[in-house]
């Protein structure tokens, strides 16, 4: 789907691979 975000749930991996990009860390309680 073009209009969906593919969320990771692994911050450590994101920190290792983000490079120059920022990480958007979303704390959520919304229905998944």
């Amino acid at each position, binding site marked *: 789907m073009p*209009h969906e975000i593919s969320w990771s749930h692994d*911050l450590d991996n994101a920190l290792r691979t983000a490079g120059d990009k*920022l*990480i*958007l*860390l979303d*704390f*959520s*309680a919304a229905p998944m």
Partner: protein
Amino acid sequence: MYTDPRVVEFVKRNVVPVRVHVKDNKNEFKTLADKYDAHWTPATLLVDSSGTERHRIEGFLPADDFLSQLALGTAKAAFAHQDYSSAERLYREVAERYPATDAAPEAQYWTGVSRYRATNDAQALKDTAHAFGDRYQESTWAKKASVWK
């Protein structure tokens, strides 16, 4: 917030999205909520690759406001990394693209600061103070800039 196509596009282009859900990722949520002092949802943090928080959005926002805050966060990160010419450009984009949001007067303020940092020319601060005479006169950021006149 994340169903708006503009938000999806921004996220895909500019950031690495990580979600911790209070129920579905219980252990990660507890660890990270404690680490980042995030005890209310939704809470959206922009974190750089060192793990340092650069911006935080707490509570729901409509898409335009949310986008403006995400863009503000990317500008803040550039400023924090002392990339002042990029910060100036990014702050200016926030003020131009989202003029009706709370982020706009803040971005206008920091556009001037970034330009000053990049050029060491105090005229950038004076120009910013005078620009607040045209827009956002009642904002906190106008008060902060008033000292530069």
